[in-house]
């Protein structure tokens, strides 16, 4: 299951990161380099925050993928006692439509909650605070 989640998001996030880092204004990196910043410090304290803005949309989508992967993996995993995915799967078997739909809705709602809790707050604390995004 962990592998499923991992695979669900890994490639998107990696690609996005590479692109985002390339998009970073080179002058900002140059400014840091001439101060003598290099190596890990340069990566963690300059490249990473600077590329966050470009990274966020893809991050959002990737978390969505991961969430889906989690539920999907649950459906196939025989070892789990009870899980949302398993519930839907069994409902399909018994043709219990209402349970199926209830399950789907819950998946959707939980996904939105995750987005709100994790990513929106991340966004507010970082990119909005730094003035890189215009807020309503």
């Amino acid at each position: 299951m962990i592998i499923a989640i991992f695979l669900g998001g890994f490639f998107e996030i990696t690609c996005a990161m590479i692109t985002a880092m390339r998009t970073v204004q080179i002058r900002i990196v140059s400014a840091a380099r001439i101060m003598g910043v290099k190596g890990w410090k340069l990566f963690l304290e300059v490249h990473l925050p600077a590329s966050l803005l470009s990274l966020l949309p893809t991050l959002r989508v990737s978390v969505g993928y991961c969430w889906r992967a989690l539920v999907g993996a649950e459906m196939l995993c025989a070892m789990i006692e009870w899980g949302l995915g398993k519930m839907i799967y069994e409902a399909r078997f018994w043709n219990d439509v209402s349970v199926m739909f209830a399950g789907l809705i819950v998946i959707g709602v939980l996904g939105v909650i995750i987005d709100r809790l994790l990513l929106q707050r991340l966004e507010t604390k970082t990119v909005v605070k730094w003035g890189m995004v215009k807020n309503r």
Partner: protein
Amino acid sequence: MKKPSTSGISIRNVSKVFGSNSGTTLALDDISLEIPEAKFTTIVGPSGCGKSTLLYLLGGFDLPTQGEILMDDKPVRRPASDRGFVFQDFALFPWKTVLGNVAFGVQANGYSKKEAQKIAKHYIELVNLNGFENAYPHTLSGGMKQRVSIARALAYDPKVLLMDEPFGSLDAQTKKYMQGELTKIWEKFHKTVVFVTHSVIEAVYLSDRIVVMTARPGRIKSVLDVPIPRPRNYIGEDFLVIRRKVLEFLEEEIQKEIQQNHV
């Protein structure tokens, strides 16, 4: 506080060629120049003459195709904290406060966070931005941002300060104010400064020495000394004489540049 130290720079037979699919461009052609220690040197020239390219080479962001650049007898080949750089578009770190920006370089050079902040506060005061330590760059005006940029470049006490048209994106009034401030700051430290601009007035106001470059490929056209005591009067007799001399040289090259590119 450490006593500020400074160095001169030796530019020897430096050429820079840029290559691309559409051909190669000779940006700088065999430039040899001595940047004197503890003096304010300005490089002026028509657009595209390579003055910013030269400054970037001094910063170590790029390597000359030929020739070498020496500081303290050591070749300059990469960016390092013995030099400071001020960019035209400020290049502040938007995720750090003013204090964070200015202290960043200091911390990167071996000081603890506390010490770095103390030193940073001193430079923030120097550029008259007391009270703005916790502000984020996007809340500041252009002039303020550039002051942070200058404080940031000076804070880790580099030997040389490189400035690439730092007041180019400011309005005329702020520009004048910043020129005055920079002169005051410079008088305190007398660091070697290499300043690039296309404004002759700015050059004559600020520098001890003015280097005029030719249109592309960039060569040294002439070097003039500006022995006027500071603070200078923009409309003083001696100021105007030197300004005229520089303008004459520059106009020739601007005309050449226009011929080359716009005919």
